[in-house]
């Protein structure tokens, strides 16, 4: 019986290996750049990976339709696990990847960037925002703000515009993004004399119930609730605060973008929420609206900031490839060197959905200004 069990396993294995072999020698064209993408396409972080990869796919299709430089884009799943991300990376390498767009989430990105650094493959992450991602790797660049940058800007903004109010923070402490912003915010708050009266945490396991944290913030008398978290848990916090008639100023960061369009969410609860974000699906800009319309057409939902970051990544790479006069027959290493030189050169700047005239420094981080918005009547308006 045991033998039979192993035999059936072996058969499953053979089948899958055959399929692997059958598919691996597809389309060996040299006219197109091979772009690999890595992000969580399944599992509990799938929302971010899918958004970024879908956004990138739209950009790739637009560019390919234009003629000129052609891209072949291959998004792979990492389930938000470092090990799977490295496996995905290697499988992309076997496919012949020349440039990497990814990975979407921070922890896998740190592992993958170490590999990409060793292999000299240029990598641009849409949204892995920790400074550990780029530390010590000259070929790793970010499209999003770094976490410290956001925490700092939030504290500065509060010190300037909401001075003297007490703050409660609710953040997710098993997430490098949330923890990173919170740490920078707390440090800067001390400098600026902002009083933090309560800090509540949650983890992936407990991100559906915040009744205790919200009640504690209310109990501590916080006038501002700072939410350096993604919009999904934030929508629960807003709902539960409303249920107990607690109405402080809610202050979010770029992860908050998307809250107005969250399916089924009562957008009126987000009235007067403030947030710092580089992207908004409701801005009246032409490129922005085209992108939003195309995304809605394909995926039947409004794109969030991750999708915009993914979209921008492709265009930034496209611009840099054009500027550096790269051709698809170059090796990954040649492309990598040229792109590093281009991205860090002083005359390369990029204007996309998530900012104007963005530039990169040699450490791989991006310089762009976050915009503060306030939600009024279901629209982002400048305060």
């Amino acid at each position, binding site marked *: 019986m045991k033998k039979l069990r192993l035999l059936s396993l072996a058969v499953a294995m053979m089948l899958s290996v055959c399929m692997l072999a059958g598919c691996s020698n597809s389309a060996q064209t040299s006219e197109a750049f091979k772009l690999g993408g890595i992000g969580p396409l399944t599992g509990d972080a799938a929302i971010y990976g899918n958004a970024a990869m879908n956004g990138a796919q739209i950009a790739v299709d637009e560019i390919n339709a234009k003629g000129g430089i052609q891209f072949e884009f291959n998004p792979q799943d990492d389930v938000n696990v470092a090990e799977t991300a490295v496996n995905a990376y290697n499988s992309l390498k076997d496919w012949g990847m020349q440039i990497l767009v990814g990975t979407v989430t921070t922890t896998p990105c740190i592992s993958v960037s170490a590999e990409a650094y060793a292999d000299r493959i240029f990598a641009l992450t849409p949204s892995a925002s920790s400074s550990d991602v780029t530390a010590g790797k000259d070929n790793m660049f970010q499209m999003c703000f770094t976490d410290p940058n956001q925490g700092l800007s939030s504290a500065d903004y509060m010190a300037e515009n909401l001075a003297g109010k007490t703050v409660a923070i609710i953040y997710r402490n098993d997430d490098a993004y949330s923890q990173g912003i919170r740490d920078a915010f707390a440090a800067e708050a001390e400098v600026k004399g902002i009083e933090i009266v309560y800090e509540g945490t949650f983890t992936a396991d407990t991100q559906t119930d915040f*009744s205790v944290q919200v009640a504690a913030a209310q109990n501590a008398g916080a006038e501002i609730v700072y939410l350096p978290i993604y919009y999904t848990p934030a929508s629960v916090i807003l709902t539960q605060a409303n249920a107990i008639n607690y109405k402080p100023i809610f202050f979010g960061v770029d992860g908050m973008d998307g809250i107005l369009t969250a399916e089924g969410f009562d957008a009126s609860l987000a009235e007067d929420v403030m947030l710092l974000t580089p992207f908004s699906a409701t801005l009246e800009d032409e490129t922005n609206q085209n992108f939003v319309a195309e995304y809605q057409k394909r995926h039947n939902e409004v794109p969030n900031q991750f999708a915009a970051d993914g979209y921008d990544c492709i265009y930034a790479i496209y611009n840099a490839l054009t500027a550096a006069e790269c051709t698809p027959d170059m090796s990954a290493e040649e492309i990598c060197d040229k792109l590093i030189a281009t991205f860090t050169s002083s005359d390369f700047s990029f204007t996309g959905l998530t900012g104007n005239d963005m530039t990169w420094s040699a450490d791989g981080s991006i310089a762009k200004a976050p915009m503060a918005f306030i939600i009024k009547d279901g629209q982002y308006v400048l305060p």
Partner: protein
Amino acid sequence: MTFFLSCLISGISLGSVYAIIALGYTMVYGIAKMLNFAHGDVIMVGGYVCYCALNYLGLPSLVSVLLAMAACTALGILIEGLAYKPLRQAGSLAVLITAIGVSYFLQNAAQLIWGATPKTFTSVVHIELPQTLTNVGVSSEALVTVLVCVVIMVGLTLFINKSKLGKAMRACSEDKGAAQLMGINVNRTISVTFAIGSALAAVAGVLLCSSFPILQPTTGSMPGIKAFTAAVFGGIGSIPGAFLGGILLGIIESLAKGYISTDLANAIVFAVLIVVLLVRPAGLLGKYVPEKV
């Protein structure tokens, strides 16, 4: 004081959701003697069905809940028939692994059907509570959850103790062979148990999502584990035990979050469970069965 009260109330409301899920776990365990790890995912499916009925078909709340129950009942019977029934004679671990396979299947199928983006669930409860109650943190969802939980608990106890089918269930859980000799259709009894358990899962899913309005493919997994813990805590196989275990677990979790540390709330819940099991190895209300030598 108000803070303590609001912690307590949110604990009871969380606990009653755990309790409803734990009731399903306990029933299935009591009869089929299997840990049905896919139970949490049936909850998720229940949530999605109700969500679709409410938002896409525009059905009234009560009809949507009934639809979710019907769908989950069918799903439960289907899972049992396809995946568990062929393994009736196999070891309990084989069934456990199959249940895990079913759980993966449901989660990934849900992601393909409904997408990974979380949906914000619209509450099915539409009751206006007086201001005095909402001020101390009582939400209408919490109230309904607790009421439903008590009703289900009492109903199940009566069903198990009084009805003929309930008697058959108890017989099957004591000794399947003897039950069969007495003319009880064991297979059918187990199927019915799964059907009831899955219908309860649908109710739990709808109430879970009404109180904590995030619906995504992994929604059911953590409450599933917690409810399993609750069932063991109260003594697995015992219906009042599942109820008590669920409520206590919710209260402990809430108070730990409020007064000790939000980081360690889960750890504290599990630590309490361990201590309880060391003192009472069969759980709070579990029957200690001495071993026959």
